[in-house]
């Protein structure tokens, strides 16, 4: 089975600064494959191994995708190859734009059986690219998938809803959005890192996105509540006494 794992790179949240005027400072933030897309790669690798197939990574984005470190990192986590669509005009797309470019990029990859996307991208967390992509491709589409088992020419998946778990047979091709609990991504070892250097990356150019779905009028850091920032340390009995006093003083204790 040929499995495509869709990956989004985003700036690392911990390293994003906020300025006094509530604008964001992204200068120090390294771009990384989203945490939940590591689950996507892992799921693609496992399915490819179970079916004697291949796992292909696919990412759409701006110039940040040119980073060889980022590419190697993605490849070292279990991809056989990586398809990168990187263009200044493709940075910061909304979900429908992204889905359109992914559809066009997928048209250039032969014999795709299954497209996997993550629980949500690490910056916008819209949880929509997979759903919209599935609709554009006109194939079987599910979100919230927590387990995927190959069964001959189809898959059996588990999809937890709020009050029940659905077990669903899915014919191929399909687009599945996964949960972040579906697996534990492997930590690449020295061998994986070395092997990653030899695996192919394919650049795709000439793709374009439709107009955005919204006009953005502002982007501002969330306003922070002032905090007292008192810290107590030391002997347990002592800190607990201070903690109880504090809880009493703020009316937090019963």
């Amino acid at each position, binding site marked *: 089975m040929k499995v495509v794992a869709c990956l989004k790179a*985003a*700036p690392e*949240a911990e390293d994003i600064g*906020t300025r006094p005027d509530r604008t*964001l400072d992204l200068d120090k933030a390294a771009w990384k494959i989203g945490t939940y897309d590591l689950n996507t790669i892992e799921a693609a690798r496992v399915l490819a191994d179970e079916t004697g197939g291949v796992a292909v990574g696919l990412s759409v984005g701006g110039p940040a995708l040119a980073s060889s470190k980022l590419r190697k990192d993605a490849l070292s986590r279990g991809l056989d190859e990586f398809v990168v669509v990187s263009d200044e005009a493709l940075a910061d797309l*909304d*979900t*429908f734009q992204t889905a359109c470019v992914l559809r066009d990029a997928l048209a250039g990859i032969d014999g795709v059986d299954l497209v996997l996307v993550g629980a*949500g991208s690490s*910056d916008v967390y819209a*949880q*929509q690219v*997979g*759903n919209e992509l*599935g609709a*554009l491709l006109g194939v*079987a*589409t*599910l979100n*919230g998938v927590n387990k995927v088992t190959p069964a001959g020419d189809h898959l059996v998946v588990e999809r937890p*809803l*709020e*009050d*029940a*778990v*659905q*077990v*669903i*047979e*899915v*014919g*191929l091709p399909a687009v599945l959005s996964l*949960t972040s*609990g579906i697996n534990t991504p492997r930590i690449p070892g020295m061998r994986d890192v070395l092997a990653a250097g030899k695996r192919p990356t394919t650049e795709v150019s000439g793709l374009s996105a439709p*107009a*955005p*779905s*919204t*006009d*953005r*009028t502002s*982007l501002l850091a*969330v306003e922070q*509540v002032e*905090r007292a*920032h*008192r*810290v107590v*340390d030391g002997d*347990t*009995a002592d*800190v*607990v*006494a201070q*903690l109880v006093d*504090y*809880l009493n003083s703020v009316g*937090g*204790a*019963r």
Partner: protein
Amino acid sequence: MSLGNAWVVLPNPAAAAGLARGARGLADEVNAVVVGADAALPGADLTVAVPAPPVGALAEGYAASIAELLQARGAQIVLLGADVSSRLLAGLVAARLGTSALTVQGVAVEGDGLVVSRTAYAGLATTTERPAGSPAVLVVAPGVLPAQEEAGAGRVEHVDMAPAPEPLRVVEVRPKAGEPVNLAAATRVVGVGRGFADEADLRLARELAAALGAELACSRPLAEGLGWLPTERYVGVSGATIRPDLYLAVGVSGQVQHMVGVNQAKVIVAINKDKNAPVFGQADLGVVGDLYDVLPALTNALAR
């Protein structure tokens, strides 16, 4: 100000039933498409009742037909809930209408159009945006749209639709055991994180919560990865947003994705054994200590 119409779309009658009441604040006319409806949706003027999907099919399979209906009737705003099925239906319908499904934190009518706010960069920031086309497809969590009183005209129209012949078949539905959780209503919340080494150790947090009269919440990994607590209990950018009087974080590192769910709490107290844990930067009182020592002693002291 309000727009001409809003359409609420529900994959089943139980999904986001309050949406119609909220939609009244945005539009003069509130309509609904409800899969499996046998009555008018409270708050809607018109309920288009679509038959429940045949056994083995999903309500989401109606997406193409629903998109066609919305287009034919000139929908201006399309609203769906934030549950798993509604989210999928939202994306399937939006893409067919040539637009993004927007998960919004806030939505209002300004001038002749909509203004929505959304989170960005893992919850660090908020955007304000104007949807460019019509209709706008919005995913709305409970609480985002204040409910209005008006009952709606309550008309019902039955429309027959056949789900797309998709290669999908539901072969089993297992009920999920759940406990009712109402984090939003809690004035005190104890939030637990990966500092707990074992599921059984959560007993320490439950005892503390009982002594404080607090609800138990958690970080995402405890609910999604480890499955120690139900997903309704995790707070953060992808979980619940709460504003209790007291949030007591235990063994939580304090990453932004978690803290945006609680940063409007009146008082934040953190217990963490790492004095450099980011949670201390966002707490009123930080206790540097091992939760296995501090929690039993604290519960004891509070019980006295």
